[in-house]
């Protein structure tokens, strides 16, 4: 039995099996709150099921799905009145200090990841979305652009600027780190690279 001849639910299950986790965590990182993320993920996946017959196969299913997911999350964020546009002042006048960077690098992976998750929430939504799709989910710039319905160049630009903002947040907001930014002397000399 080919995919097309299977019942709709079975087809859908087969298609989303490798993507369900990605969808869930994309929503989680975009929305920032677990409850909101689950609502958006449910809604996006249900919509994908309802519109499954309209998927014409011209693009990859994952790209099509990410488009739906992103749209659902961004709509929800708009309703939540999250910040969409970049506050340009945030980018200005930041020069990372070596000490700050070294301190971050000395953190344990678990602490870094926790800080990263918190820092993501601080990003303006449109930049956050681009970063999540490219750096977290591994989409290519072209796929991310398609999902966000923006030109590829804009997608690249947003990712680059998002990385810069993320860097600034990670290095200036020490309260994001576990232990409230106090370095552990025992880990000071550890190199994680």
């Amino acid at each position, binding site marked *: 039995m080919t995919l097309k001849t299977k*019942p709709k*639910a079975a087809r859908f299950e087969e298609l989303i099996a490798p993507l369900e986790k990605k969808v869930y*965590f994309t929503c989680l990182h975009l929305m920032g709150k677990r409850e909101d993320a689950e609502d958006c993920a*449910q809604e996006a996946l249900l919509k994908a099921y309802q519109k499954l017959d309209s998927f014409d196969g*011209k693009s990859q299913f994952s790209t099509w799905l990410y488009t739906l997911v992103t749209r659902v999350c961004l709509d929800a964020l708009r309703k939540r009145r999250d910040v969409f546009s970049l506050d340009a002042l945030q980018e200005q006048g930041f020069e990372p200090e070596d000490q700050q960077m070294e301190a971050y690098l000395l953190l344990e992976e678990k602490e870094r990841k926790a800080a*990263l998750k918190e820092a993501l929430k601080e990003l303006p939504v449109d930049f956050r979305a681009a970063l999540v799709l490219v750096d977290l989910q*591994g989409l290519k710039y072209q796929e991310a652009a398609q999902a966000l319905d923006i030109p590829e160049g804009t997608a690249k630009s947003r990712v680059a600027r998002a990385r810069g903002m993320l860097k600034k947040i990670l290095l200036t907001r020490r309260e994001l780190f576990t232990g409230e930014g106090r370095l552990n002397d025992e880990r000071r000399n550890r190199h*994680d690279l």
Partner: protein
Amino acid sequence: MTCEHVRALLDTRESLDAQQQRLLEEHLASCLSCRFDARVLQDARALDEGEEVPFAFTQALRQRITQEEEAPVKQSPRILKWLAVAACLAILVGGTYLAGEPRRQAVSASPPEKALGNATTYAEGYDANFGGQAPWAAMPESSVAADRSLMAREASPQEKIIRTARLELSTRSFDKDYENVLALVKEKGGRVESANLYNNYNDLRGLNLTLRIPVKQLDSVIASLKGVGRLVSFNESARDVSEQYYDMDARLQTQKTKMARLQELLQKAESVEDLIALEDSISNTQYELDRLTGSLKGLDSQVEDATLDLVLNELSPLETSQDQQEGLVERIKSGMAAAFHGFIQLLGDLVVFLSVILPYLIVVVAFIIIIRLIMKRRKNK
């Protein structure tokens, strides 16, 4: 290798060749900022490793999908369906009715209007087409006869009365009744002065006859014609031309006397001039004699033979009989035949209506298809 170059390589770190990897790592070892960026990117890509989707989420999603699959296709409320059907039927019937309007307008110029126009007693101008029953038909025979002939009394010999009548009849057995009319006229000593046979609406026939009936037989003929078909309208007029007639007759006598005198004078004429003058007068007098004689003869003819204009209309099966003499069964049969005929007419009008709107339908459908294609393309972009 510059930091910018390194950032570009970091995006595709998994697909770098050995040399690129080596160069990258050499740079990272010496550049804290790039090392930081690399670490953040590495952490980002592995952010969700070891994390699992909550089972409750997965379960809830499957449940909703199952519900979605099992949910019956939303049916619009029945009443909406029936309303949609009713609306379609109304459009079809309305359009069909309008398509048949020109035909019905032609009907309005047909004999039933003429019947109303000439009725002396207006109530007599009923036609079965209008669903009414001619009060005439309901009236007792005696009063019918009395009403029918307004000039029922015999004119005195001295009176010169020109009688004209107009009678309109409807019949389903057109040919038979036509023959009956001719036979009746012949029997009564009348004659057909003119006949005009034509096709009415729906290929129904009509007949206009101008009959000359001996005046003494006129009432009898009119009474007999009642049995031929069904009376639609009747009117009669009588014009007293006695004064005109006797005046003309007196002038004729005068001219005759004059002629006799002129003839006498002509015999005694002695000069050529007198002869010429007398012959000229005789000629003029003869002309007047001829004219007056002709006019008197014409009046005599009109007085002796009444003019009866008869209109005979063929009834179609559409027209149900309002005749009280038809029984219930006959009326039901007539009604059913009329309904069937009407249905056939409706189908024909429907075909006409659909043919007329077909070009517009094609344009509308093409327009809708184009719009949908454009919208689909925009959506795909």
